[in-house]
């Protein structure tokens, strides 16, 4: 396994940990406050929908896109996702946005679940089913997208899927063992790290995909894949400078965000 594959699998693994943790909080709130059968049914329905989405996305990407167009489109999308994650991380670390807190989200979801009307269909509580379905599907789509795009572009789909499955097993095992939101997982720091990786791989692939606009010679990064190390360092430096510049003199930011 080379360095690029290790970085790719790590990015997929940590992105999946973050998304699965968020989905688990929603399903746990529905199971505890409403009905476990309905929450689990919603989760299974979302997993089936995600499997269909993965098959369609994978087939569409491999059938219709040339290698350079694939890099251009996927790189651009990863760049957009990565910069969205980094933007939030910078705003949180500089005290301009509240920290993501699974305990708060669990409390809010539980409160809404207790207040919602109870409508059932064949023994399934529709509110718990729909909220669980939506939570798992929306968080899962992002994981699927990262897995499929990273896997196909770096030609390591099996490794990327393995990283996501490992993350899923860890989150579900921890969740069932603790039976409470996984607020100990340092989500804000993980999101920051994953944002750096997405932005770096996105920059690398999007610009390499510019080969689509010319046929005669290929556009390649100096040092080839070693350039990724430079991109990671550069995005890290830029975000630290942004955080330092935006942080008020007496910042309320927590220690997690400043790591």
């Amino acid at each position, binding site marked *: 396994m080379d360095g690029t594959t290790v970085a790719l699998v790590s990015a997929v693994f940590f992105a999946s940990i973050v998304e699965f943790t968020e989905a688990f909080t929603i399903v746990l709130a529905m199971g505890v406050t409403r009905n476990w059968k309905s929450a689990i049914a919603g989760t299974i329905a979302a997993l089936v929908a995600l499997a269909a989405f993965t098959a369609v996305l994978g087939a569409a990407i491999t059938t219709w896109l040339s290698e350079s167009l694939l890099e*251009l489109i996927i790189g*651009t*999308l990863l*760049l*957009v*996702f990565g*910069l*969205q994650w*980094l*933007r*939030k991380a*910078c*705003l949180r670390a*500089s005290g*301009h*946005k509240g920290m993501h807190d699974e305990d708060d989200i669990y409390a809010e979801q539980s409160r809404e679940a207790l207040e919602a009307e109870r409508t059932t269909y064949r023994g399934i509580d529709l509110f718990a089913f729909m909220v669980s379905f939506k939570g798992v599907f*929306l968080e899962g*789509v*992002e994981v699927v997208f990262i897995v499929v795009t990273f896997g196909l572009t770096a030609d390591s789909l099996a490794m990327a899927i393995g990283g996501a499955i490992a993350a899923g097993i860890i989150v579900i095992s921890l969740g069932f063992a603790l039976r409470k939101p996984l607020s100990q997982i340092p989500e804000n720091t993980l999101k920051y790290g994953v944002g750096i990786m997405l932005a770096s791989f996105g*920059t690398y692939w*999007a*610009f390499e995909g*510019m080969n689509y*606009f*010319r046929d005669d010679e290929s*556009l*390649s*990064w*100096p040092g080839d894949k070693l350039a990724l190390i430079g*991109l990671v360092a*550069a*995005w890290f430096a*830029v975000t630290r*400078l*942004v955080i330092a*510049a*935006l942080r008020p003199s007496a910042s309320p930011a927590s220690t997690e965000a400043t790591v």
Partner: protein
Amino acid sequence: MNFLKAFGHFWYDFLIGDDWKIAAYVVGVMVVIGLLVGHSVLGDTATLLLGTAVLMILFAVGVAVDARKTRG
């Protein structure tokens, strides 16, 4: 109609997210760099470094604008 609206909303949230500026400047930079590459205006390394630097500057400016809004 409701389904179409929800479908459109989902994809907007997924692709554009909380801050439309990011998608706008990323696409803008890609178009400009695509034109530079297509017309061979600069060397490869200069094009890559220019594109990366412009993205980083726009990111920093975009976050600073959002931070100022939250203060105001």
